């Protein structure tokens, strides 16, 4: 629990760690919607091309700068394990922002968003930031889900919405930045609340399911 001190003084971490915040984001959605492709596109300038057989491919870190703060984004990708349903729920733990991805050329992936939302409700921490991401928007000829339909679903569930294409790169950066900004805002407001009531932070950190406790435990 040494991280408790760190959380209340983010600037001291920044001096040593070269970033101000570490956020964990999660990509979910049906298989084949292009989650990993989105991640590749987003992190393509930073991932290490060497293949380390003991670790597999680790390319999931990208540092961004928002409003003068350096934010290290650790993006979790469940791609390949979607069918191990009880394992994928393990990824929810500690996630501060979730990007729900569907494929505009596949009706099924869009319909399943409702199930994924329910899944988030059950497994993710309360108040986790969510963003509905419509991928493959470049494939206009194959599109079966219109932008309006996506927008409508997002509004219905009170979450944000963006259309992008991992293929062309359109809006990919925006999607992650938008998510990072929202998490940052929430995180900062939480922090100030904690500072106001210092005793409470200990309690939050003792809860293993809490996004805060998990993320801070890992950043040190």
């Amino acid at each position: 629990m040494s991280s408790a001190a760190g959380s209340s003084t983010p600037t001291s971490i920044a001096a040593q760690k070269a970033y101000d915040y570490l956020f964990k984001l999660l990509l979910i959605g049906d298989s084949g919607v292009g989650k990993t492709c989105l991640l590749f596109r987003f992190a393509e300038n930073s991932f290490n091309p060497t293949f380390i057989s003991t670790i597999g491919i680790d390319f999931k870190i990208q540092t961004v700068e928002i409003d003068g703060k350096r934010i290290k984004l650790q993006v979790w990708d469940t791609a390949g394990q979607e069918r191990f349903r009880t394992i994928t729920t393990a990824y929810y733990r500690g996630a501060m922002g979730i990007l729900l991805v569907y494929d505009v050329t596949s009706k099924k992936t869009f319909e399943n968003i409702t199930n994924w939302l329910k899944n988030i409700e059950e497994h993710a921490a309360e108040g986790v930031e969510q963003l509905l991401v419509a991928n493959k928007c470049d494939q206009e000829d194959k599109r079966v889900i219109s932008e309006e339909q996506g927008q409508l679903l997002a509004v219905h569930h009170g979450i944000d919405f963006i259309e992008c294409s991992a293929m062309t790169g359109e809006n990919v950066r925006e999607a992650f930045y938008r998510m990072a900004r929202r998490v940052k805002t929430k995180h900062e407001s939480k922090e100030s609340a904690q500072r106001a009531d210092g005793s409470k932070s200990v309690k939050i950190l003792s809860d293993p399911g809490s996004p805060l406790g998990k993320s801070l435990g890992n950043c040190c």
Partner: protein
Amino acid sequence: MSSLCLQITDHLLEIEKSAKYMNKLIEKNQKELIPQVVTLIIDTVQKMLDDIVVIVGREPEISTDDKWNLFFESRQQEARNYLAALVKLSDSSSEISHDDTQMTQEMVQKLEKVLRNILDYARFKFPVTPKCTQNSFRKSLHASIENLEYLGSGEIPRTRGLRRNNIRRSFRTISRKTKELINSSSSIRPPSMDGTNNGSVKRRLVTGRSRSVVGRQRSNQSDVSEGLTFLSLNSADLHLESDRSNIDVRYSNDQFSAICTSSPAGSSYSRPLSSNSYSDVLSTSCSSGRFVGGPEIVVDGPPLLPEKGLPPILPPKKNKPLGGLNVFTPQKNRFSMVSSDSRDSYLNEKTEQSSDLSLIPPEIPEKRSPSKNHRDSGYNELNDPSSMLGTPDQMVEKVLSQNVKSDFIEAFLSSFRTFLPLENLIDQLLKRIRQADTCASASGIPVQILIRVVDQLVYTELNDNIKQKLDDEIFWMMTHREKNFLNYAKQLRDSVQRIVKKKNSAKRPLSMGALSDNESESLTKKLRNDGTKLLDYTSDTFAQHLCILDADFYRSIEPSEFVLAAMSETQDEQKTPNFSAAVNHFNSVSYWTQGLILSQNSPGKDVTDLRERILNNFFKILSHLRKNNNFNSYFAVVAGVSSKAVTRLHWKSSIHEKIQEFQKITSVDKNFINYRPVLKDSLLPCVPYIGIVRQDLYQVHLREKPMKDGMVNFDRVMRIHKLLEQTRRFRESKYDFQKSADIDRRFCGFQSLQNDDKLWEMSYLIRPLAEP
């Protein structure tokens, strides 16, 4: 029916070889040996005809076919006539005149024609059906016994100059042992080494083959292998005793084939082997080199070790099924083979320059055993990317070239699906097989590769179209004998049959549809009972049961299935049936774990205690799973106990700590950074978590394009290959435990509510949502 074709094919091969041998002898003017060769041919033909009678008698569908019977009888008569003429010729005098040799040759040719006629007709009339293959192995064993008894009974036709008694004694003993083997139903008796006690066996005069077959018990693979190992050992003894002999035992993985050949010393027609070549035969054929040379050397040491066996002539076959037809066919340990060795060595010796007579297919490099630590070596050897660049077609070309590295072949076989459709590859190979120049030493490579490809098929890939193509090819190879593809044809057919068998025995995957309220209600009740039942078992027993299940599921997944699973974007369950079954099992165990704890949801302190006891029991099970390196179930159970519906309940802090402790290794952080090194260092038996295999392959698949500028991305090929090699290591996992039928019955495949909503409902019943 297939066994019929196979046996006849083998006989034909023998006759053909003998005929060639005879021609050579005639060329060389070594006429004194001809009668012996003729005897050999006569013997083979008789056995062949008898075999057909035996098999026909046993296959109801054949014995009732009048047209076939008529055809067969007339051909049989024809063959017998030629046979009689031959016998007469070889009997008439020891000095054979020129006319005699010509007539003999003619007779042999005619015989061959008749017999081939029978084979072709049989092949057409009774296409191989999976039903027929089911008991073929046992049938071959029975046929062996009868053949052996027949030989031992004094019916050996005119084998001049042979030490009949020795041979008979050997065969009788082998026959007895084989029978014992078949009769022992569940466990084989420990081999007794008194096999040479010839007095104990009564001489049987078996002339007809109408005798009912003894021992209908199923024999499982280990029985059979153990028994046959013994059988070969035993005949080794016999051989040592009976002066000159050799035994040839070949193993490849689970598969083995025992070829017992004995070579009587005084046999005048077997061109005497020099003492050097003789000991060569011995030392190479006795795979573990336990005995070399003469009779004074005692067999010691353990039974032949499969790993040390002769490398298979042909590409290694993994998971050879019990029913493999060429495993142990009667003609192989029959007397007629006695001299075939010397004949073959003669043939090879004489025809080294003219390879058209060489019947031994060129070897392709044996696949390296995946258990060795070579995970990186392949990549280094093939690290020169410039030499490995090529279009998909050029890759096929490379694989088929003669000097290709075995690593490259393996890498190609692992990954070709990612750049070349299966059917396309098969078409290309078929084309090459037809074009093959029989004189070239590499003529067998395309068909060898084809056999490997077929061996590694996921059964769902074998659609009607491909099946038809392969069947046509087998028939073509059998009928175009000048290509010397008979052996390949048999192997290919074995492989195809194995896949067909899998396809037919496959269960439809259970679809987990939504349960009705009633169903889920009764399932909840069942889970509630299961919870207390679980406490009846020691965690050790339970973990062991899971180990067996997981190892079985893992082994059932063809490595190529992992590639298919990763490549198919939609994760089509039909395409990867074994993988899907394993995933379903994983999820079942995981949900079952949750369900067991959460279904104890009636209020009261007792129930709280019960939940805790069940949870503690799972902790113990987890420790045992970890100890036994069963990471698949470990992940499943950890996911169950650490699910939010469970952890949100009120538990002692020690329980939470334990859960976190168990979770450490399954942490998804940094792409399973805790788990990967542990897995790497784990010794077999070990079952990895299969989700990571798919994830790793999927990421290679997504990250690397299959093609670069029209060339196959070789880097990607090697990565896929390396990942698959890692998975192969664990396929050899065998736990030395007993599966508990009791657990199987009681928990019914870990049926549970695979529905998060229901589980949460149960969780809320225990601890209401509003509760602080």
